Each structure stands twice: as structure tokens, then as C-alpha cells.
């Protein structure tokens, strides 16, 4: 094997494993998005529709801003998670409940909701 052949084989292995990792992520991500949607829409859990218009949700309230184009508004996922975990950090007077800090949702559920909201 020439050095070239070694490199190209290594590269292709790398490429294949990259593709499979990516594939794995996107399958897991699709699950997270649909599970997150369930948590967000459930009246006993996120109940986000009480205050936010969200595509696909009916009878939404208008207390908070519509949740659209979220990747543009939150390029950094951690910022979005922080907004859901404790919105009073940014605005102490906000009416939005502190879903993480007050344990309204579990950490796992907040991860799922974050994935879902980012997909909007």
C-alpha cells in the first residue's frame, strides 16, 4: 500500500463513520423533536401554547411572542435552554414559568423541549 492508498482508505473509513454518526444523530434528533413537542404541548407539562403561538398548535395564547425562526433568534442552543430553564434570569418580572429552576419539567424534558423549539 502506498501512503496515498493508506490515506485514502483512512479517509473513506473516516467518511463512512462520519456519515453513520451523522445519521445516528439525525434519527435521535427526530425523536427528540417529536418527544419535545409532546412535552411542550402537554397542558400538565410545558403547556407553552397557553402563552405562545407555535406552528401546529391550536387555541394558542398571545402573552408571549410567537415561537418561530428559533435558530435565528437563538444561534446558541445553551441560551435557548437557559431561557426555558429560568426565564427570570433575563427578566425577573417575566410571567413565563421557570421550568427548570422550579422543577416543572425534568432536565431531560427540558433538553427535549429545547430540541423541539430549535426546530421551529
Amino acid at each position: 500500500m502506498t501512503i496515498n492508498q493508506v490515506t485514502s482508505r483512512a479517509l473513506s473509513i473516516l467518511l463512512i463513520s462520519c456519515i453513520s454518526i451523522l445519521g445516528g444523530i439525525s434519527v435521535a434528533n427526530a425523536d427528540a423533536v417529536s418527544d419535545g413537542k409532546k412535552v411542550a404541548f402537554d397542558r400538565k407539562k410545558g403547556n407553552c401554547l397557553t402563552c405562545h403561538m407555535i406552528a401546529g398548535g391550536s387555541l394558542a395564547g398571545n402573552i408571549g411572542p410567537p415561537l418561530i425562526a428559533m435558530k435565528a433568534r437563538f444561534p446558541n442552543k445553551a441560551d435557548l435552554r437557559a431561557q426555558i430553564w429560568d426565564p427570570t434570569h433575563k427578566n425577573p418580572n417575566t410571567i413565563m414559568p421557570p421550568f427548570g429552576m422550579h422543577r416543572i419539567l425534568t432536565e431531560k424534558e427540558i433538553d427535549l423541549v429545547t430540541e423541539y423549539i430549535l426546530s421551529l
Partner: protein
Amino acid sequence: MKRLLIGAFAALLTVGATATLAGQSEDLQALRDYMQNRFPNLAFMDYANGSYALDAAKATQWESQRDFPPFLDHLDEGEKIWNTPFTNGKGFSDCFGSDPSKVRVKYPRWNAEAKKVETLEGQIVACQKANGEKPLKTKKGKIAYLSAWLASQANGQKINVIVPQNDPGAVAAYEAGRKFFYTKRGQLNMSCADCHVYNSGMQARGNLLSPVIGQVTHFPVWRGKWARATGGKDGFGTLQRRYDGCNKQVRAKPFKNQGDEYSNLEYFHQSMSNGLTIDAPDYRE
């Protein structure tokens, strides 16, 4: 002047932030200014109609419900309770005076000797106890019929809750009620003001949030929701029963009915409707 400026500032920005500076009349003015700014087209008297004053479609539904008041028999029963003598021969008129149209407007009020806020329902119970009668439960049922009948006798008169500014106890009770109203509580971390001041007029799912001004003119209220829970038989509830409902919504533990927290809250809360006409009882969703 300084006080004036602070008052104006409070009205514009945070109605709740100047608790120790402002008194009852400053609070009232600040809230009215805030609401006037929020609902420029709403006439003052129309606040008594709650969320229906803000939504024409809801108002039409409501009007048709009001054409067939479901509570007339209950009002008759309330009148009967008023007129039924106690076993000792006395009656409610010995506690409240012989003119039933003059009762509703006296409450809530400060009792300087007992150092307590007196509410109408609290005094009904106190009257029964003083006369050796078994006291009524204070959230619903007979007490609501009696209280609603007394309120109906006062229709057309104005809410006018007075906080004697020269009585530190009264002022402290009012301030405690005010603080309760503006304090976030419960797992959902919301204050009464979050829904009924800062987000009044907004839509929380299917519910249009009513402004705090005007929330008390029609109590005890007949709620469709409460009526449904009894198969349509009895939708009546007192103001403090309604407080429970709003506290449960934010997953806060309801406070003791007719306890100091709720009665102080009622003192503040009713006084923010001063100047509005009593029109009771009435139907609400």
C-alpha cells in the same frame, strides 16, 4: 412634588414597585392610568364587565346567557335565610341593621378594635356564632346565596372601600393585601398582577385575562364552570372561593378561607374597584 413624580413614574412603568410610598388613592390613580393607557377605548364603568368588555364575540354569548339567569331560586333562598330567625329569636338584621340594601357596601372594612379586616362572608359567620348558630361554610352554598341576595339589594350603589389613613393597622392590612397581589407564588411563579395587570386583555389559551379593576362588582358570582361541576344545580361562589381557583392555577397552595391573607387581599382587591357600580350577581364562564 417628589411624591407626584414617583406616582407618575409608577403608573408608567411598574404599578407594583412603590409599595411603601403610595397610599390607597395613589395606587388607585396609578392603576387607572395604567389601564387607561392599555385600553384607551374602554369607558371606566365598563370595567365592571370584566373580560366581556374587551371581546365583542364573548360579550354576545354572555348577553344571551344573562337573558336566562340561572340563579333566581338561589336568590330567593338567600332572602329566606336573611329572614329566618335564629333559635334565640334574633336574626341577621340584629347584626347588620334592618335595611338589607345597606349591607354589601360596608364590606370589606377595617375593624379598629378587633384589628382585623371584616368581610361580608366573615361577618355573616361571626353573626351566626355570636348567636349560638352553626356557622355556614364560607366558599359556596347557602352563604353565597345570602351574600348574593344582599349584593343584589345593593345594585346601583358604588364600591367604596375606605382605608383609614390615620390607622396604622388598617394601612398595614391594606399593604399586606397589596403585597400579596403583586407577589409571585406557586410552582409557576406568577402573581395576581402578572395576569390581571401586566397581561390583562391578553389571551391565555381560551381565556381573556380581565383587568383587576372591575373584578368584584358582581360577586358572589355564578360560574358556568362551577355549575357544570354540580350538574347545573349550583354555580355560586364567593370572592375568596375565586381566589382559591386562581391560586391553584399557578400551583400554589390555596390559603385559609376568610383567613388574614385572603381578607387583607380582599381589602386591597375590592378597593381597586372603588367607584364602580355594584351589579350582582352575574354570570361568568
